[in-house]
């Protein structure tokens, strides 16, 4: 048998090697984003910029309208996050704590629709929004993000733990249901709302196929859509594309690092639903 010291060394070597694999593509992106034009194609490859420059980022914002794409992404993501937290929190709470005939059956029906891939309804949804005049609008891209079965599910599971005595006491005191929800329930279920917000933020920010379909006008494009069309014209400009990739990835990474705790909870909660 190996001594503990040797196993520990081996274990940590494996941990570090895996970390390098996870981080190298992102690290190379960050380095190349600050390289001079052509430097990312040097042989042997440069791992760090020899003469760092901001010109790639300047080009993105001045020549290439990425500021507008960034703004589009930010507005859509923030609206999606705020609105979906409200919509799903109310529904999840009702499914947990406001009894009515057939409620649990309705919830089970809804939960079983979780397996339906979003792509199945995308074409008709596009045609519907086209009829409503919502193609190339923020509202059009937002509507499918607002209510989410997974979000309702997350909130319901958490809200089941809210004490009925607390709610009944407030009802005896004459508080209305909306007041109870706003004043008593929301503060109690805040952790799961943070989870939901983190999930919605990241999925809206990173989403590609839906904005690609509904935001065909270049001025309305989100960052991923703008980036995918930029790579068509500027595939030779490695450094520029890496700056654009970094601009897109960085906000997602920062939000993840801040909300990590809540994010992990959502993933493990989702996995035990079985």
């Amino acid at each position, binding site marked *: 048998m190996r001594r503990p010291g040797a196993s520990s060394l081996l274990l940590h070597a494996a941990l570090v090697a895996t970390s390098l694999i996870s981080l190298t593509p992102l690290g190379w992106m960050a380095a190349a984003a600050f390289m001079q034009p052509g430097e990312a194609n040097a042989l042997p490859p440069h791992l760090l910029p020899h003469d760092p420059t901001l010109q790639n980022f300047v080009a993105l914002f001045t020549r290439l309208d990425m500021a507008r794409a960034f703004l589009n992404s930010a507005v859509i993501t923030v609206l999606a996050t705020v609105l979906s937290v409200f919509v799903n929190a*109310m529904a999840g709470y*009702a499914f947990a704590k406001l009894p009515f005939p057939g409620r649990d059956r309705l919830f089970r029906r809804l939960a079983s629709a979780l397996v339906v891939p979003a792509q199945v*309804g995308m074409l008709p949804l596009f045609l519907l929004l086209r009829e409503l005049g919502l193609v190339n609008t923020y509202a059009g891209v937002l509507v499918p993000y607002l209510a989410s079965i997974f979000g309702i599910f997350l909130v319901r599971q958490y809200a089941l733990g809210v004490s009925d005595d607390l709610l009944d006491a407030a009802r005896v005191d004459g508080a209305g249901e909306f007041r109870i929800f706003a004043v008593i329930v929301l503060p109690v279920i805040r952790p799961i709302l943070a989870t939901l917000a983190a999930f919605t933020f990241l999925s809206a920010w990173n989403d*590609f*196929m839906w904005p690609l379909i509904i935001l065909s006008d270049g001025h309305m494009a989100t960052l991923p859509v703008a980036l995918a069309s930029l790579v068509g014209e500027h595939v030779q400009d490695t450094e520029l594309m890496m700056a654009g990739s970094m601009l897109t990835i960085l906000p997602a990474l920062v939000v993840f690092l801040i909300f990590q705790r809540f994010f992990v909870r959502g993933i493990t909660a989702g996995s035990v639903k079985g």
Partner: protein
Amino acid sequence: MRAALWFLAPALLLLLVFFFLPVVAGLLLGLTDFDIYAIGSPGNARFVGLENYARLLTNDVFWRSLANTLFFVALGGPLSVAVSLGAAMLVDAKLTRLRPLFRTIYFAPVVTTLVSVAIIWRYLYHPRYGLLNHVLGLVGAGPIDWLGDPHWAMPAIVLLAVWKNFGYNMLIFVAGLQAVPAELYEAAAIDGAGSWQRFRHITLPGLAPTFLFVGVTTMIGYFQVFAEPYVMTQGGPLGSTRSVVLFMYEEGFRWWRIGTASATAVVLLLITLAGALLQFRLQKERT
């Protein structure tokens, strides 16, 4: 109760109009010859029964897309699950220091934007300047024309998918590992079981429900692969990376053959339902 209605109304209405209605409409559109002429005036669309499905069955591009997707799922699914389990065991090992740091690092690719990492990997895969071929060259292998060779393009996309996704299932495996009772390991150690025997007879059976969940959700997710081939190869070379969803996108939004595209979406739905049913059955068997 009246209040419940008000609480549920926004979510249910949104889901009804913007999710359930489109899904049902998709089933119906798949039975019509809805195309670019019908978009202006829907009256031009005719009911054609199962003709779209019959045509899909004789469409080589569709079959190729389905085969490509199955290859992606069959190679990427097990590989992702295996790497996730390996990473989970590394992170969860008793001797591991700085556990939260490693967990965060492995999870970071999961939250990155798929389009961006697809672009990054496109450069990493560059046959001449790419970092990957450079590393291969250091050990005397390669170079490989990753995205230009029809035999390598799909494996290259699998590699990117595994890199990006393994952290997600890793978290679920860590939760599963922590649910395996520690006494079992202690008892086995007293009985003189080696580490492989403990892995084989305690860890793996203990993780069976986790495997089921992770395996099926990963495969369902992988059937929907779209952005990677869209950004990295546009389905090429020689159609070797065109996925079912990319085929659907091209039929629907490039050629406006909405009928064919809707029928393709229904095929995707049926495959997904079959996967979910499999999970349900296997889970029932266990209990």
